[in-house]
């Protein structure tokens, strides 16, 4: 490939592909990410798209973006600010202007910067001047014209021609990074295998984009990001929904159970159902139910019948499932409820991220309803916590809520593939027939879990249900029995704490400030705290995955710091929960409710403010 006059070496670069929802930006971003991962970069991705499949063209509301952070160092977030923006229209400039780092490169399709489209995006005449981007490294590429030119000899319709524009842009970005085209070409071939002309057109345009980058080389520096020092092993890219699905599947296999998922499509959780629906080869039975309630109720039925049962949803669906979730609490059947959170309330921001279902998960049901709640921290983490949710559910005979969110569900990262032999064992508390009468609610003295008597087993016939029961399983309205059962169900969930690993502290065990978070803020919090530590601040971080019960060393960790701050994407649900559970501490709050993840910078700025700039010593 051509020689390069100016190469910038970087530890990490953030690239954002941005255009109309029909421009294929999600695919472009994914292909670029996979190519980078294959090269050996560490990566983190963040797709950000509108709720409408084809939102009004050319408007800021219709912009679909895919951000990827690639690095030679370990990458924990998709990056706050963009180094390279690929903008297919003026709206993409408008939507992203505030996230551009100084000196960024903007590659844009100049054919699409007509007067009309400029005004549609809310500009008067000159997007770059109006958003003060003139000093950026602007690369105007007449992509539509170039694509038509590249394909002029092929007999394909003009619509298909224009659909390849994203490949042209991708080709240009590949040139900037001196990347190999092979992965993308293989992908094109596989995807359009049945339409060889379309495949050929896409490949041709991809290469045209690459060569165009080379031709205009004098105009721009290119980048070099060396591979990251990653642990040896076999890797793959994985997103949160896929990881969650595979995690519960791994747990089912470990427990010697077959998996059942009853679910209903809802953004951003549908990927879990889709992933498991594929796995008929592994005996997974999946049902797309008639509604959210049927999703959980079929799962409860399957659990009663002896399957590892899962249901997946998002906030509005969890609300619909809450009555049935209590049925699982009452019947003490294992069930994994996956809530991929999104912006609420009501339909809210269906495609945006938020951590605002925490209280719903903890408290959103009638009566005294103890349910373990755990949360995953990164896309690949979803595998471990999917596994963990299922393990807790089965071993403790209880429904478990696993909280992930839109950011984790759609975000992806390279993942070192584990071997299932390294996963912990799962012991299923089966009931067995003995001479004694089987009592449905007789409990294990240690875990307080009841036994799982599977229909079809002779001699263990019993009835369960939503009405309060005695140990024997008979309906009972006796005052003392009810109080006893309420307390013992609660105690059963509290005893899970014995298996909850200690809360980990990133950094020293004592200091001026502990930055607390839970679930998906893991990447941003740990990156911010690591940077603060490097800058000399006495700051540590602790990000929770176990919400109910909380790790037993929680208070001990908190006691080591002068100040505590809880960062979360809601108005303070976890902070208030901690205030209730560990009253003796004062909790500062840093909250964001914009449907977006934190940026590293805002967490850092807040911490520095809280510390009044005070550094070590």
């Amino acid at each position, binding site marked *: 490939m051509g020689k390069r006059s100016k190469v910038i070496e970087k530890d990490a670069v953030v690239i954002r592909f941005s255009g109309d929802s029909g421009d294929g930006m999600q695919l472009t971003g994914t292909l670029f990410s996979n190519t980078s991962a294959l090269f050996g970069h560490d990566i983190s991705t963040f797709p950000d798209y509108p709720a409408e499949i084809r939102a009004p063209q050319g408007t800021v509301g219709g912009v679909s973006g895919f951000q990827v952070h690639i690095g030679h160092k370990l990458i924990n977030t998709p990056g706050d600010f963009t180094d390279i923006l690929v903008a297919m229209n003026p709206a993409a400039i408008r939507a992203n202007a505030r996230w551009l780092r100084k000196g960024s490169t903007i590659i844009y399709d100049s054919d699409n910067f007509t007067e009309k489209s400029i005004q549609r995006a809310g500009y008067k005449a000159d997007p770059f001047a109006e958003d003060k981007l003139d000093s950026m490294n602007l690369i105007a590429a007449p992509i539509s014209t170039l694509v038509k030119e590249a394909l002029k000899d092929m007999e394909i319709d003009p619509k298909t021609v224009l659909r390849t524009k994203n490949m042209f842009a991708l080709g240009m970005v590949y040139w900037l990074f001196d990347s190999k085209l092979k992965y993308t070409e293989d992908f094109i071939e596989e995807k359009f295998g049945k339409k060889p002309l379309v495949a050929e057109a896409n490949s041709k345009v991809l290469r045209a984009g690459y060569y165009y980058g080379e031709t205009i080389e004098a105009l721009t520096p290119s980048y070099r990001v060396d591979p990251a020092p990653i*642990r040896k092993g076999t*890797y*793959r890219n994985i997103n949160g929904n896929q990881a969650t699905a595979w995690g519960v599947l791994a747990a089912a296999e470990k427990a010697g159970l077959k998996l059942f998922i009853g679910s209903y499509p809802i953004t951003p959780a549908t990927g879990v159902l889709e992933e498991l629906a594929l*796995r*008929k080869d*592994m005996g997974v039975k999946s049902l797309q139910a008639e509604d959210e309630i049927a999703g959980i109720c079929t799962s409860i*039925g399957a659990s*009663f019948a002896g399957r590892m049962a899962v249901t997946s949803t998002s906030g509005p669906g969890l609300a619909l499932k809450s009555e049935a979730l209590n049925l699982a609490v009452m019947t003490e059947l294992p069930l994994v409820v996956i809530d991929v959170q999104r912006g609420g309330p009501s339909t809210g921001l269906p495609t945006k991220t938020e951590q605002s279902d925490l209280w719903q998960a903890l408290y959103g049901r009638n009566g005294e309803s103890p349910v373990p709640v755990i949360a995953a921290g990164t896309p690949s983490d979803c595998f471990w916590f999917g596994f963990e949710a299922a393990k807790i559910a089965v071993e403790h005979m209880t429904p478990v809520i696993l909280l992930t969110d839109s950011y984790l569900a759609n975000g992806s990262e390279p993942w070192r593939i584990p071997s299932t032999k390294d996963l912990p064992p799962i012991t299923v508390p089966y009931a067995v027939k003995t001479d004694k009468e089987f009592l449905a609610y007789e409990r294990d003295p240690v875990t307080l879990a009841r036994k799982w008597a599977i229909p079809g087993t002779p001699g263990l016939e019993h009835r369960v249900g939503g009405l309060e029961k005695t140990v024997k399983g008979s309906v009972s309205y006796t005052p003392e029995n009810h109080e006893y059962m309420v307390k013992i169900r609660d105690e059963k969930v509290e005893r899970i704490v014995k298996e909850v690993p200690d809360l980990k502290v990133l950094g020293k065990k004592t200091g001026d400030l502990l930055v607390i978070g839970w679930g998906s803020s893991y990447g941003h919090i740990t990156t911010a705290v690591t940077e603060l530590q490097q800058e000399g601040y006495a700051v540590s971080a602790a990000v929770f995955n176990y919400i109910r019960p909380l790790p037993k060393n929680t208070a001990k960790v908190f006691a080591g710091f002068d100040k505590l701050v809880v960062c979360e994407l809601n108005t303070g649900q976890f902070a208030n929960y901690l205030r209730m559970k560990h009253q003796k501490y004062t909790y500062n709050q840093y909250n964001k409710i914009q449907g977006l993840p934190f940026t590293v910078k805002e967490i850092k700025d807040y911490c520095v403010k809280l510390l009044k700039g005070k550094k070590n010593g």
Partner: protein
Amino acid sequence: MAETNINHYAAKDFKSDQEVRWCPGCGDHGILASLQKTLAELDIPKEKYVFVSGIGCSSRLPYYMNTYGFHGIHGRAAAIATGIKIANPDLMVWEMTGDGDALAIGGNHYIHAIRRNIDIKIILFNNEIYGLTKGQYSPTSKKGLTTKTSPYGTIEEPFKIGELTIGANGRFFARTVDYNLQLSNEVYKEAAKFHGTAVVEVIQNCVIFNDGTHDAFTSKENRDDNTITLRHGEKMIFGKNRDKGIILKDLKLRVVKIGENGITEKDILTHDAHEPNPGIHYRLAGMSLPEYPVALGVIRAISAQTYDAAMMEQHERVQARSKIRTVDELLRSGSTWEVK
């Protein structure tokens, strides 16, 4: 467990140790008795039965049945039963439900279970009232019925269960009366043998809140003339003197008298429960007084693939094609790379 053995069960083997708490005189007692008798006569090991229910008087039945049982939440029995059956198609799943449970709050699950043809037996106790909440009108209450929540009479048209069921692509629909143990036994057995969603509407009397609502065709003096018991392959003849019959004329069912206007037995329709076209079954299931007698017995029973069987078949097909069997194989499928 040898499944082919005669199990020698008696009805009492299916009685649980729970005290039956329905009101004295309630039609539910008869339903329980005939179900227990039916199970004793079927050649299926006891541990394979699962009785599932929602909420309401009907839904207490699983507690009284000495089998596996699941007393669910209001309206959701069909969904719970569906999950059980898919999880383990070896089980025989019976759903106990009522007109409020299945057709109001649970209407969605009801029609979708039927549409899928999941192999469950739905016994729908139709007393045209909410009993457990003490007497409010239900989706099957007659228009104009005065209840606590309709003090001036209802202004709603009721559902006809047969029409709804067949309209939802129901493959099996039967009707019986709570006190008619013999017919019930016959119909339950047919439902048990049927592969797919079998709906049995049981005309049930709630002595407390809607006593006598079905009397026009269930009382001793009315039942012979105002009901017709359909049996596959038999002529549609009814009446105390067995002199009335049903014919189809000008696309309409008509009640005729044998011997009048030249009508002979030959002119009377023969019941074909296996006819796939739902038209005639829909009309038979919808027959009501005063124009028609109410049809009892198995009105429709057509075979089709069940959902659970289709799922097993699909699993086999996919398994024949895919090499992935274990999680380790799955994690390493698709595009991966080595870091050395």
